[in-house]
């Protein structure tokens, strides 16, 4: 459509370079397009080069925690981790140690220590790590402490830029902790202890969030309902677990969750709970939707519009559910509320993830490796958060009040 427009023709004549624009790409203005695709595309094609493939640290963590993955993917990922992760890790360590100078303590280490606990969300680990920063700080003034905290949170954020909840958790922690009246205390030590107190409290709230959400969502799960879940989300699992414990009768449809097959793991967990589970391939969602009573998904991040960023495939499930008038419920802790506002799918920092197709892909074939998509708020029914059951539009209200 666009390439037959007059002004595009004009543009073309202005920049003669861009004759070879692939028409299906989303960016329209030619010069940057050729650059970006040309630079990024060729190395991606060959499976042998997979180790160079960009890999989101967030998804690496997830895979390490609870991935049911194919062996070859795992080996690839390990390779990739060995190639890039080691370098990253060293950089991080040096950054964490060098940047803070005399500080005897690195946030990243602390963060990683917390992160090892499989049930602890990344954001909570970050919050715990930041709380430890306050505790170990040798600062003598509030300003110093604040700067130190800021540095720590920045280094945490830069450690993994693809994780929305990590960024959001750090930001929220900063807001929550520093917005206190601590600055009015005369005595620095009492102010500091107050900060630590708040930090601990925030960490605890975040830890409890999952329980609260599970309790809140029980009213929505009724006997005999069929729930469609997508991907593996610990909150959703907690919700379903609580429902099973409450002797609710329901069955669950699990999508497979390609490429890392997170749905398989969820179905395993549910089978352990004696919940009837049916496994679907991702493309069978529309086929089964008329049997489904509600869709339950987790979220990597909840953005300001009230939409969610979640594992690839959530958007299409939400679209199908919306067109069939099925409710789409999102379970997400409030530390995932991020100050982001994607306008469309491509308006986010991409989190990439290698995809195993089982067969070698010809080098001329481009592979979409993005790991997540954005579901706009109009396709979501309710968000279950630890702040309560919210409509999507309330998310922005909460964020405004928090950040104003």
């Amino acid at each position, binding site marked *: *459509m*666009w390439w037959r*427009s007059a*002004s*595009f023709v*004009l*543009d073309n004549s*202005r920049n003669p370079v861009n004759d070879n624009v692939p028409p299906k790409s989303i*960016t*329209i*203005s*030619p*010069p*940057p*397009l050729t650059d970006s695709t040309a630079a990024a595309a060729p190395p991606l094609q060959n499976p042998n080069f997979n180790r160079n493939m960009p890999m989101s640290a967030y998804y690496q963590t997830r895979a390490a925690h609870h991935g049911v993955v194919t062996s070859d993917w795992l080996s690839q990922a390990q390779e990739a981790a060995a190639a890039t992760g080691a370098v990253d890790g060293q950089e991080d360590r040096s950054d964490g140690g060098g940047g803070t100078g005399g500080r005897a303590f690195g946030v990243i280490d602390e963060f990683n220590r917390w992160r090892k606990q499989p049930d602890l969300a990344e954001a909570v680990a970050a919050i715990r790590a930041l709380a430890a920063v306050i505790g170990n700080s040798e600062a003598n003034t509030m300003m110093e402490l604040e700067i130190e905290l800021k540095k720590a949170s920045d280094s945490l954020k830069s450690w993994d830029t693809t994780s929305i909840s990590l960024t959001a958790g750090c930001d929220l922690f900063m807001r929550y902790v520093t917005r206190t009246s601590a600055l009015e205390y005369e005595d620095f030590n009492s102010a500091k202890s107050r900060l630590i107190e708040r930090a601990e409290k925030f960490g605890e709230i975040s830890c409890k969030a999952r329980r609260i959400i599970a309790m809140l969502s029980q009213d929505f799960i009724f006997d005999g309902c069929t729930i469609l879940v997508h991907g593996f989300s610990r909150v959703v699992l907690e919700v379903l677990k609580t429902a099973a414990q409450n002797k609710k009768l329901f069955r669950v449809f699990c999508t497979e969750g390609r490429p890392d097959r997170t749905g398989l793991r969820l179905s395993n967990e549910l089978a352990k709970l004696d919940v009837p589970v049916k496994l679907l391939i991702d493309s069978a969602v529309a086929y089964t939707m008329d049997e489904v009573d509600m869709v339950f998904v987790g979220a990597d991040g909840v953005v*300001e*519009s*009230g939409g969610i960023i979640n594992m690839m495939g959530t958007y299409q499930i939400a679209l199908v559910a919306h067109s069939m008038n099925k409710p789409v419920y999102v379970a997400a802790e409030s530390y995932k509320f991020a*100050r982001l*506002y994607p*306008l*469309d799918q491509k*308006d986010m920092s991409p989190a990439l993830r290698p995809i195993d197709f089982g067969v070698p892909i010809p080098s001329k074939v481009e592979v979409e490796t993005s790991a997540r998509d954005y579901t706009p*708020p109009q396709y979501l029914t309710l968000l279950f958060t630890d702040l309560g059951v919210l409509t999507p*539009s309330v998310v*922005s*209200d909460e964020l*405004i*009040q928090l*950040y*104003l």
Partner: protein
Amino acid sequence: MEPRRTSRAVIDPKVRQVGFFTATPPPPPDPIRSSSTSPPPPLINISPSGNSLSPVMIPPPRHPSDSLVLRRPPSSLDSDFYPPPSPTTTASAGDMSDDIIVSPPGKAGGRASLKNPQSAAASVPSGGFVTAGLVKVASSVPATGLTTVSVVNLPPGISAGGAVSVEVQNERPVSSKPLKEKTSKAERRALQEAQRAAKAAAKVEGSKTSIVASSNAKPTKPAKPPSQKNDNVTIVAASEKKGGDRPLEKDRKKDVPHPRMQYDDKSRVEKAKRRSVVKQTEARNRVELFRHLPQYEHGTQLPDLQSKFFELDTVHPAVYKVGLQYLNGDLCGGNARCIAMLQAFQEAIKDYSTPPEKTLTRDLTAKISSYVSFFIECRPLSISMGNAIRFLKNRIAKLPITLTESEAKATIQSDIDLFINEKIIIADKVIVKHAVTKIRDGDVLLTYGSSSAVEMILLHAHELGKQFRVVVVDSRPKLEGKLLLRRLVEKGVNCTYTHINAISYILHEVTRVFLGASSVLSNGTVYSRVGTACVAMVAHAFRVPVLVCCEAYKFHERVQLDSICSNELGDPNVISKVSGREDINYLDGWANSQNLQLPNLIYDATPSDYVSMIITDYGMVPPTSVPVIVREYRREHWM
């Protein structure tokens, strides 16, 4: 929020009789009683808090007598007669003059009917759908059914029996009223004096400062008992009232016509006109659907105002200058107008000195109010200006009593500076900062008209070296986009210029739509230059994100569902005439045609469904979050 509710509850239910409202008709056969018990007096042009825009608007009913006004043949309008109060239905004048509530037609109409009876007949067929018989019926319907119409000035030549009762109803006699009425006015005044004496203990200084704007109808004003005023309070506007400064509010409401006065409410328009400085000639051929909006002949005010330059002692020169600029369109754009107004106020405050026996807070507020009413006469206020005025008045009202005059003046001046700086200039910078993050390399951005915020965004993105192209969409009659286009091209931005007619074509290639806004209302509706809604709708249909850039001080808690109930009508000539195209100017004599209506709307309302994001100084928010911003903003500043 609490005082709002209580004040609403306090209001006398009688108030409800006043508005646009088909009440049970007051008993016609007993005129004397009805006058003594005083059917709710005409709404004074001023609403209780004239400075504040009321959150809800009452769409006016279209009653037949009004439509007849519209169809009045030009012959019955003598141009020197300034406010044609109710030139209704010349045919009904004779029959109805003895019926009290059915107010006889206004002076012009009455006179015309005496002079040339055929003019009445002439008016009838031109109405298009009313027959001669219908006219009589129609004229009596509003009179009995609608209390608003019940108070109209009496023509001098009407029988005395009718006149007596009507004149009692008349709150404000026109300057040209016959002597006979004055006696009754004195009577009423005596009555009011008595009432006031009773009230005087309660509020000593309340009515003192009220004489501010110079007007011939003044003497009756301070005599007005507060109870009556309460009756006049419209429900909605009263809700704006804040708990503390009630007497102050009352002073205020004397001077400023309500910013959104319903212009088909004759009595109120009457009152407003009597005190107005700018003499506006009402448009002859008013657009039917927009009768509630001011519709004046354009181009007549300026010479008139210029000629009166030395007579206007009440208006500060700086204010006068800005007002003239509004009038002839030199100043347009929400921010520019608001800044100019605030700076004019600053000048005026600098030269202000409190008259003896008055307090600065009250007198200055009244002064500002009179300036505001002057501005309104020049051009209806934008919502941003309304908000700024609200801010200013609030600041004045909250001045500590202990301050000396010079200190107080300095405080207010610095407050104004702060407002301009923080709420407009810095806010724009923040908006630019946010918006630029949404511009990627390779984007094609579309903008409509000329918005200062959008221009800043585009230029800043260009300075950052982003590769993008701009499509400037423009429309007649203002063609504001040309200026924007020129400034963008000068800076080296790649641009495409097109008219709104091609919008569906050009949107194929667009990736983002950036729009400015005159205001954002609390249901997310964007109130902006006419045409914006069209652009947003087409963009929505093409799934192109629409980003609205608007400073938070322009947000308003009102809710508006269409572009009709509140809008501004521009000069109809500019849409009927195309300059430089003599060959297609077929509508030269349009003003005389009764069948032609040319609504030149200035604004329109874009439903929030079409808006993906609103970029404000509080960040990027979805349109559903506007109420939060409004609430937080209020809390921060004046609540």
